[in-house]
């Protein structure tokens, strides 16, 4: 039972890392960003390329995440920012197009075959036994650290304060003479970097394949809807709750595990209709 819970927490941690960017992007820019699935997959493939060259885990992770950030800047600058304030449909379609292009580019460079990765913790014996795998515990710890870090960031730093204010009242912040776009762009890049990190951490548990972004996006959207769009604490709780839901359902009836996420999403909608301001 303990390993089921840990597995649920691991999934929750990954879901949190991926969803927080989506949630913030939606809360600030009112954009549903399908390209988030691309940076998630891209991070993993950068990592696959870098790991043999650098030889060790941590530098490869840091460098891959660092490489994803300029890509996300380009996506934000060239696609998302040009669709500010317009019908949300165009943003959905345009970022979906970016996801399609990027996925095909990954297929061209790396091929469509799934790429298995081994867990990076040295002394692999420690997570093959019945005891708790260290690697997964570390993932959960990383997600909690990211949550604490982000909470601190939004409370203490200037960027964080501006964005927190903009989540609440964007016009008000604009009236103070602040260019919110600049701050949103930073948030966009942080969110993308975290998604890439989530992808890299999750890849050894599953496997890397070009369409991994599509699949995880659906889950992340469910997390964002359950947690509340733009709600940081809600996203954290929803991610772990849904992660546990997946692992516990998976133990009872494995085929229903992923479906349960969407059932939970439907139930949330039924009892708490979303009053999003999409215009």
């Amino acid at each position, binding site marked *: 039972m303990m390993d089921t819970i840990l597995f649920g927490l691991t999934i929750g941690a990954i879901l949190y890392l991926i969803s927080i960017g989506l949630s913030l992007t939606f809360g600030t820019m009112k954009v549903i960003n399908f390209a988030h699935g691309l940076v998630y997959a891209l991070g993993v493939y950068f990592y696959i390329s870098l790991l043999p060259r650098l030889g060790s885990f941590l530098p490869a992770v840091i460098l891959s995440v660092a490489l994803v950030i300029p890509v996300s800047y380009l996506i934000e600058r060239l696609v998302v920012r040009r669709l500010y304030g317009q019908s949300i449909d165009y943003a959905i379609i345009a970022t979906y197009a970016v996801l399609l292009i990027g*996925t095909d580019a990954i297929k061209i460079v790396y091929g469509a075959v799934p790429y298995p990765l081994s867990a990076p913790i040295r002394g692999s014996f420690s997570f093959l036994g019945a005891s708790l795998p260290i690697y997964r515990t570390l993932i959960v710890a990383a997600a909690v650290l990211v949550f604490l870090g982000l909470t601190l960031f939004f409370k203490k730093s200037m960027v964080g304060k501006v964005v927190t204010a903009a989540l609440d009242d964007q016009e008000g912040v604009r009236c103070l003479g602040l260019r919110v776009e600049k701050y949103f762009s930073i948030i966009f890049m942080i969110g993308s970097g975290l998604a890439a990190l989530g992808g890299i951490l999750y890849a050894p548990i599953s496997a890397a394949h070009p369409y991994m972004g599509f699949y995880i996006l659906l889950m992340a959207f469910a997390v964002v809807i359950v947690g509340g769009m733009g709600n940081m604490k809600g996203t954290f709780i929803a991610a772990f709750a849904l992660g546990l839901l997946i692992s516990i359902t998976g133990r009872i009836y494995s085929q229903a595990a992923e479906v349960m996420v969407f059932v939970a999403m439907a139930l949330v909608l039924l009892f708490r209709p979303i009053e999003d301001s999409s215009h």
Partner: protein
Amino acid sequence: MVNENEVLITSKENATFARLSLDKGYARTLVELAVISIIMIIAARFFRMYRITDFMVFIIFVLSFDLLYGYMGHLSFGHMLYFGSGTYASAIFMNRVSGNPILGILAGILFAALLAIFLGALVMKTHGAAFALINMGFNQIGFFMVVSGLSAITRGDDGMAVFPDPLGSIHLGNERILFYVVLGSLLAVFYFLKRLTQSSFGIMIRSIHENENRVKFLGYNTYRYKIITFVISGAIAGFAGTLTTINYGFISPGFINPFYNVNPIFAILIGGAGNLYGAIIGGLVFKFLSEYIAIYVSTWELVLGIALLIMTFRFRTGIVGSVKTLFGKLLKERMGGGTK
């Protein structure tokens, strides 16, 4: 933002137009139906007939999506669910209950419509981004159900073959007969949607697109109209699905895969949203592109993505919209009603 009375005025004008068009509209509608038939028959002479049958089925699907997205302004990323439930319901019905293709088609439409009633009541509480995503979530549930949850009935990833019985001497396996059956279906769906979108109901859903709150303030229950539209759209999508079952004679989870939701969206963007002609032209162009580019270019998704980006930034009104801008008022007067 729209002017205070604009919705009302537009509605009145359209209502007048709808009434007038009843008198002189029949001749025009007949001409339109004839033009569509001629285009399809000519296309069938130059290309493989079963291909054009497939194209027409896709156009029916695009028309159903146009009602939801183009006319009512609700972008769904989960319309494949209704297409796929039509496919699977008709196939399972024909394999297990009765081989009669007409009953099979009716079963598929009925199932898709029931699903749309059930889920529509839920998803129509949302709009905008949440609407798009929730539909995608339900589509994903449907996909999982077909692949693993109900794999005892749906045969999971293997898919299944379907053998409809002949109707007396008419055998739908004959590609010529099927071509004309599907052409007739396309004309029927087109005619139905044309009448629907020009009726007061059509004005209502276009007003919801423009400004839902205003329609609510006028005292209308928009929720009800939205669900009805969703069910009609879902049922027509299911109809397209049942025709696919008969056309292919084999079904697989690809027909319910949420990944393909981008196809009708793209087709509508090509042709022009909120316009039945746009849906037909867009559906045809999309199918030609996807069939023939995919042969020469292995990276079809890349091409599709770039084209989508260009269209969202530079070419939003689609082919029909661009042609209309080109010919200005002259064409606008002629096309009237179904366009905005």
